[in-house]
């Protein structure tokens, strides 16, 4: 899979972040392994350290396996004053995990994120590449059960 993906990209250093984003989004547990970092580094003709420095700088990337779905709850002021704590505790209870953890069935990882840019719909969360706004307990429950139902 990685080889096919690399073929699509020119061998230029500035493609690194695009490659990492593209690859990680397709990967089962949404992380980049050590071997993959080495392969990408070789493809672009840069050192592994350089790739690793990029992977560890940006919050989207992980070097550890995560869940099938990444749930990110916003923690910044507009969400905070509009019920961010409730949103977080509902999710923690619903999933049986705390922020930073992955459910035992590897379906969900719960993370905190900086502002999602949906402050007019606070509180907001993002699951994979979709953003959900104006959340309350019922809405969150409905969303999660939908994700649970879907494969």
């Amino acid at each position, binding site marked *: 899979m990685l080889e096919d993906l690399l073929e699509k990209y020119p061998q230029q250093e500035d493609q690194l972040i695009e490659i990492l984003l593209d690859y990680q989004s397709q990967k089962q547990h949404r992380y980049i392994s*050590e071997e993959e970092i080495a392969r990408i580094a070789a493809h672009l003709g840069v*050192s*592994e*350290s*350089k790739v*690793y*420095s990029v992977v*560890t*700088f940006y919050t989207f990337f992980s070097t550890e396996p995560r869940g099938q779905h990444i749930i990110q709850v916003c923690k910044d002021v507009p969400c905070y004053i509009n019920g961010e704590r409730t949103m977080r505790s509902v999710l923690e209870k619903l999933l049986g995990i705390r922020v930073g953890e992955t459910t035992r069935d590897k379906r969900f990882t719960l993370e905190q994120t900086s502002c999602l840019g949906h402050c007019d719909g606070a509180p907001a969360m993002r699951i994979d590449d979709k953003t959900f706004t104006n959340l309350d307990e019922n809405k969150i429950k409905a969303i999660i059960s939908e994700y649970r139902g879907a494969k």
Partner: protein
Amino acid sequence: MVNIRINNTDLTVKEGTTILDAAKANNINIPTLCYYPDLDIKSDCRVCSVEIVGEKGLVTACSQPVWEGMEVKTNSPRVLNARKTLTELLLANHDDTCTACERNMNCELQTLANTLGIDENRFENVLEEEPLDSHNDAITRNANRCIKCGRCVDVCKNVQGLNILETMNRSHEMKVTPAYGKYLSDEECTFCGQCSSVCPVAAITERDNTDEVWRVLDDDRKHVIVQVAPAVRVSLGEELGSEPGSIVTEKMVAALKQLGFDGVFDTDFTADLTIIEEGYELIERIKEGGTLPMMTSCCPGWISFIEQRYPELIDNLSTCKSPQQMFGALAKSYYAKTENIDPENLHVVSIMPCTAKKYEAAREEMSVDGEHQDVDTVLTTRELGKMIRQMGIDFNELENTPFDNPFGITTGAAAIFGATGGVMEAALRTVSEVLNEEPLEKLDFEDVRGMEGIKEAELELAGNKVKVAVAHTLSNARQLAEKVKGGEKDYAFIEVMTCPGGCIGGGGQPYNTTDAKREERIRATYQVDTGMEYRKSHENPYIKRLYEEYLEEPLGEKSHKLLHTHYFSRN
């Protein structure tokens, strides 16, 4: 020209000059930390912050160019407070047990804190301790002392082109490590030690072997001899407080005698021997169609570089051991035999400008009999300086003392081994006389001297035009390696030294080495050369005697056993 005022002094300086350079040129001191001459301006530490009258924020003197009418205050209360705060912040995320540190009294952060008069830290120490990386023989990394100045990353990436050390993570979790925080020994690190020589604190240091040397010196059963590399005599003086480029050969010998070594010898001797072996190897390759271009093998960083990144070029490397290893091999065989010493009780120490030499000495194949390593302990110039200070020797008052024999008579050709282009020049002096069968008119091969990254020269050998190339730093070496890999057949002989300027700019040389200081050491190196009685390796009478008495002939059976080696792909 631009008119500016710094504090109460009116100055006229060149346009484009930074505040720092303008201040320096006029003896106004602005403290710095991440700033390092010859490296990129990073402006990370912010310690050189100064005030421009009329501006709200402060600017860093290292990065800010002057403008007409600029008025700078380098020591206003606002500036001093900022500097102090920044230094406290660094100290609050730092292992500040100064008296238990290798760089105690020789640490740029400590000096800064002292200069600023910091007597308490308002901030809580937030250091999260990390384990040491002391898993190789050359370099130790202590992340707990790192202040993230970025100098090591810069040399590793931009000077050496390796990019093993990088800046990982972000915010206060940012750290400088190899990928995955791995050990240097797990990476394709050449142990060149340039990172250690630019580190302002003790985050990266050479592995300290001074205790081991003190122990063997105290052991009556041990016969302890020492060899000193050509580059050390032009830098040890500097390490001990003299001007860069001071030549201290004979005082250095005296100091080593005081430290208690039973024999003080000169690596220059085996440098001469290297020229004979390597020279004949080159002649043989040219005459018999061996792999060309032949590449020098004196530099262990370069050897690692080829083994790790260009294993397909291993056959291009000369099979000669480096002068350090040739010395060790002769010591454990010839010397032990003539002096009637059990090799078991012979301890060979070398003083090198280099951290990679520690790694080289520990390589398994660097042993004559498979039991005893050629060289037992390697110290850097800095470590020798440390021992001299520990002993309380008044270096400048020492009496000039010559090296001991049989490894004490050397030539100018060997002396220049320490400078980039020196091995090439020494080889050319011998090879052209042997091949052309007439004395050289001019001994100085100016084309291969100096700080230019890649140098080329053309000369006539036995009627053929021959091209040679010289590179220093691995970034430049990589260019040559790529050429050779690509099938470039132009060159007959290539010299590579890993460190900028050659061994005189080695990773084990005094801290704060700059290009200006390298130039001074190079100048001193050629001064040593011209002052020598013999200036061509093949004219060294003791080398001739060594062949007559022991080795028999260049590239002979004994030579092969003692003086030549082989390499491994470590890709």
